[in-house]
């Protein structure tokens, strides 16, 4: 069962900013859509830990992946292991959205936002378990970092499939363009380090939206979860509200 989602976050995804909140009618719809999403979700998660090997400052390797991504390396600096994780809500939310697109576009958008918030909450839940397990071994977790963030290429999605067997284990398949289906899915790398380092806005600078992203300032690392967010695009950016940057 996916954990409770933050209603305020759904409102933000719907474009409400600052002090503005949804009126009672929309608010009621958000409540119903949240319930539907929870009911229709079949959450799955898979993760695995790998040693992290540094090739000086130039590159690092883990799980058979060699990356030269500066943003990722910055995130993983000082780590000795990484966890690869993939989570999904299953095909249910996508079906709810497709269905609503025929009947009521507003509802489709609310499902989209509620689904995005739910997969984020589920992601957070799994991340928390990873954090606790790591701490038992005296390791600290870094903020999760997804393929498609900054200069960490989307092609790594293929490695996630190779290593985690996402299709077989939790039903995530990649499209030709390396997006994930079901769309309410997330992949990420989490670095494990002996040193405790506070989570900071790692991703803001990496996505180039620093200062202009409507999400920054709400919560730690908020922008990191919306790498494709750009200013002033309330309508069309709804397409990007798959947090954690599976790219979709």
């Amino acid at each position, binding site marked *: 069962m996916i954990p409770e989602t933050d209603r305020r976050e759904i409102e933000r995804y*719907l*474009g*409400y900013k600052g002090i*503005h909140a*949804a009126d009672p*009618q*929309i608010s009621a*719809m958000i409540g119903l859509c949240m319930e539907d999403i929870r009911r229709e979700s*079949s959450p799955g998660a898979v993760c*695995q*830990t*790998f040693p992290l090997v540094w090739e000086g400052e130039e590159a690092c390797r883990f799980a*058979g992946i060699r990356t030269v991504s500066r943003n990722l390396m910055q995130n993983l600096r000082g780590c000795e292991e990484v966890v690869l994780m993939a989570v999904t809500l299953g*095909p*249910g939310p*996508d079906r709810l959205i*497709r*269905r609503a*697109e*025929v*009947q009521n*576009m*507003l509802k*489709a*958008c*609310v499902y*989209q936002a509620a689904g995005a918030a739910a997969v984020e909450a589920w992601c957070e839940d799994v991340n928390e378990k990873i954090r606790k397990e790591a701490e038992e071994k005296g390791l600290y977790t870094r903020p999760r970092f997804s393929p*498609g963030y900054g200069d960490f290429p*989307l092609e790594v999605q293929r*490695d996630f*499939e*190779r*290593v985690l067997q996402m*299709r*077989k284990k939790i*039903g995530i*398949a*990649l*499209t*030709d*363009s*390396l*997006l994930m*289906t*079901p*769309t309410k899915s997330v992949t990420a790398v989490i670095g494990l380090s002996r040193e405790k380092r506070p989570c900071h806005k790692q991703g803001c600078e990496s996505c180039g939206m620093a200062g202009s992203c409507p999400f920054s300032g709400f919560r730690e690392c908020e922008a990191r979860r919306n790498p*494709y*967010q*750009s200013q*002033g*695009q*309330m*309508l*069309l*950016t*709804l*397409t*990007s509200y798959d947090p954690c940057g599976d*790219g*979709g």
Partner: protein
Amino acid sequence: MKRDLRERLGKEWLFFDGGMGTLLQEKGLQGGELPERWNQTHPDIIRELHVRYLEAGADVFNANTFGLNSLKFPGEVEVLASAAVKIAKEARVQAGRPDAYIAIDIGPTGKLLEPLGDLSFDDAVELFAEVIRAGAAAGGDLVLIETMSDTYEAKAAVLAAKENTDLPVIVTCVFDGKGKMLTGGTVDSAVAMLEGLGVDALGINCSLGPEQMLPLAKRMVWRASVPVVINPNAGLPRNENGQTVYDVGPEEFAAAMGAIADLGVQALGGCCGTTPEHIRRMVETVLDKPFHPNTPKYYTVVSSFSTAVTAGRKPVIVGERINPTGKKRFKQALRDNDIDYILSQGLEQEDAGAEILDVNVGLPEIDEPRLMREVVTKLQGVTGLPLQLDTTNIQALEAGLRYYNGKAMVNSVNGKDEVIDQVMPLVKKYGGVLVGLTLDEDGIPETAEGRVRIAQKIYEAADEYGIPRKDIVIDGLCLTASSDTSAAKTTLETVRRIREEFHGHTILGVSNISFGLPQRQIINSAFLTMALMKGLSFAIMNPNSSQMMAAYRAYLALADLDPRCEGFIAACGDMQITVNSGTKAAPAGETAGGKEGAMSLMTAIEKGLSGPAGQLMREALASRDPLSIVNDELIPALDKVGQGFEKGTVFLPQLLMSAEAAKAAFEVAKEAMADKPREQKGKVIVATVKGDIHDIGKNIVKVMLENYGYDVLDLGKDVPPEVVVERAVSENVPLVGLSALMTTTVVSMEETIRQIRQVRPEIKVVVGGAVMTQEYADRIGADYYAKDAMATVRCADEVFGTGGES
């Protein structure tokens, strides 16, 4: 000497082999390395594993082709498949088991099929066909389609097997602990579809251990008529130091499989985590047990990807509204390829209580096979209700059956030899529950006796074609009571006799009876009740009619089919009985404006009240022409909200609520205009570019453009550049809107623009999407950048020079 597998399958115990992956990893297969590569690099290891399973007692063993397809091994499928079968043959000799059968092992492609993912059904069939052809040519004895978590993918594989070989086909699916497949399928729905497709055996594998699989195996034996195969894992997977481990040892596995054998399954084996020792112990345990062949079941089942509807005491409602007969608006939608309208008709009926949807998209001037395929595939993307394919066009029927994800109802065959010979082979191939109309070359018999005779003929024809009688449902046909007052009596007598003499199921389109009479719903609902009393199994009717649904629910309550009358109370408790057909009242809670007439159409739209907006439009139409209402009230109201949105005082949800209200009003206007040529501001194409599957932003743009009076041609998502160009040219469209989500897909946006420029430089292109900026838009050569849906409307107004009108 080896006997034909079909002579043994289901007639004696047969054993399948166990897991391969875990054993290969022990032999050094790296995580992520593709096992099928080892057919070339380590044939000795593969062969040795086969030998160990054969020595352990497996009768059917899998050639190492599970993950083999040209997505993973482009250009190498034939070589690797032949190598796999060759290794298996050598193992058979080495183990001294010439009696064993080599399965061409077919696993999932690794991609999800449309609409869930981006693999088309045709491509899936071809991917499977390639491996099956090569495996069969190399000497495989059967096709084992396994680990299927999506019935659509399983269907593609079965068709690939049947269309390319005569080998036996066995399918095993994956279910979770709750008995669901990934895409929502159940044991019942999977059995219905696969038996319809004519598989030789079916079953369950992977995901669960024998203990968790037992209740599902039990259900399967209860529902299936063909032999059942059960291949569980060695328990539930557990993660230990990054390795997946399974805890059920050989002895425990064998004991649990003994319990499954006692359920009456016909074949057993193992999957992940099982070893030759697991299989050996299992064989020893099970061989001592009495074998029972599976028994034929007589359920009449219609299924979708997720739902199985079984005919029984409780009559089934088949929604009749997806049908152009007598509906101007629907005909217009078919001509305009307005699929969303058709889908919305389906969803409305589902919400009203339909359990199956009849799909009739036949109009003389349209390409019915193409439309049938499109509507069927789109419908199964949005609803889990099973479909009834209703057509007299045999190509359209085949298109519907082929692309349908489940076991469809087929409407219809009749007593004419020519029609029987066209329709029945298709039902035999794809499966289906076939409606048999009691008419033949001489027309509709006037007596029940005559109609029963035709039913008899249809049953016998089904026997000849190998279609089980349970899959025939007889339509006793309703003629209009106004022209012959004995019509209803004859029909009801036919229903009774089919029920009593053939133990058959019946179906009726109950609305015909009242044709030509006033207050048709009174007659229809009375006739429905009478027919249900005679044992009618399926009623084709309008579930949106509250009177018909009330009659149906009252019947259920009185026939002891509605425990504690809960269904009736829930549905009819607050019902206001009006005998006024036609107009639909606004849903409760949407009359926020107070008394009728207190609110203007403009206010209703600004406030986003769909019910009142539709009603007010209907009232306004009494005195004014639709177009002037749209231009003078609808668009200005929407514009006001749009301006608020642009200023940041109105938020997206309110904008969309107003858009929905405008749409509801517009829909009423469209109905009024359906028979007249429509004046549109102009035609716009919208598409989400190739590689991109997120199109909600594009869909918002579409709704807004339509509300502003544009004719929008929506090409969908993941649209190749060539398709955009082709349609832009053939439809002579001045403006194309493209959306893309990611930097990686902006590349295909750029390519689309390049191809448009090459062919028609005068076509304007507007782009939008999360990653898009003005700078980006300029760089890829777009004419306009729209930051949101309102901006797209403004852009269209500029291109068409229509901005001033509103």
